[in-house]
């Protein structure tokens, strides 16, 4: 019978899974990380996910305010938070702006960010799905003889 899977074992399994990639990254000592590009990528991912998640949560806030006799304050605050994200994105993706990558225009950059967000979130969801399904493999009937 399998023993119970502890969180420590899961962490070790995760590290083993990442080990080949980590070894390759660590052994390429001569490589220089393009930190400016990394920072721009981080900022783009941050702003895109912030803006999209804010818009999603504005809809949730409507539901919340409905349950509280429809006050306007919560969802107006959330709308401001979402607008802030949109404004910052527009400001920083101007021609020659901080967030511009190898794209020709602001519209192209924003579209690139959106598609990047969709692909990343799908990848994360698939990874979570695979992890959950793999964990089901370890499910088994309770050993009645033990108790």
């Amino acid at each position: 019978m399998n023993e119970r899977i502890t969180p420590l074992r899961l962490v070790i399994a995760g590290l083993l899974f990442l080990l080949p990639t980590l070894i390759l990254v660590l052994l390429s000592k001569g490589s220089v990380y393009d930190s400016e590009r990394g920072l721009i990528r981080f900022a783009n991912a941050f702003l895109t996910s912030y803006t999209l998640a804010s818009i999603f949560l504005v809809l949730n806030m409507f539901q919340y305010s409905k349950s509280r006799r429809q006050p306007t304050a919560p969802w107006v605050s959330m709308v401001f938070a979402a607008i802030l994200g949109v404004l910052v994105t527009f400001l920083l993706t101007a021609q020659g702006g901080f967030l511009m990558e190898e794209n020709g225009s602001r519209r192209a950059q924003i579209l690139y960010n959106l598609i990047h967000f969709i692909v990343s979130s799908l990848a994360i969801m698939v990874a979570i799905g695979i992890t959950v399904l793999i964990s089901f493999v370890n499910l088994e009937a309770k050993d009645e003889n033990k108790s």
Partner: protein
Amino acid sequence: MFNGSSMTSDEFHNSILLAASDILGFISGVGLTILVFGLTIWQYERKRPGLDRLPPPDQEQLNIAAEIVRNNIGGEEDE
């Protein structure tokens, strides 16, 4: 040493770290949104007036509650 036919180790090294920046940005953005969402609700709930103190239940209400508990908890009698 690790260069492949379609990708050099430098490119791989950079791609992995860029992907890490991407995922970190993604998680931070969603995290900040959830924080803002929580703060908004917390601010609103904080300003709401507290619930008035309710009087203690009378005997009739206690009987109704006992009836509900009796109907829902307890299970079958042992034979």
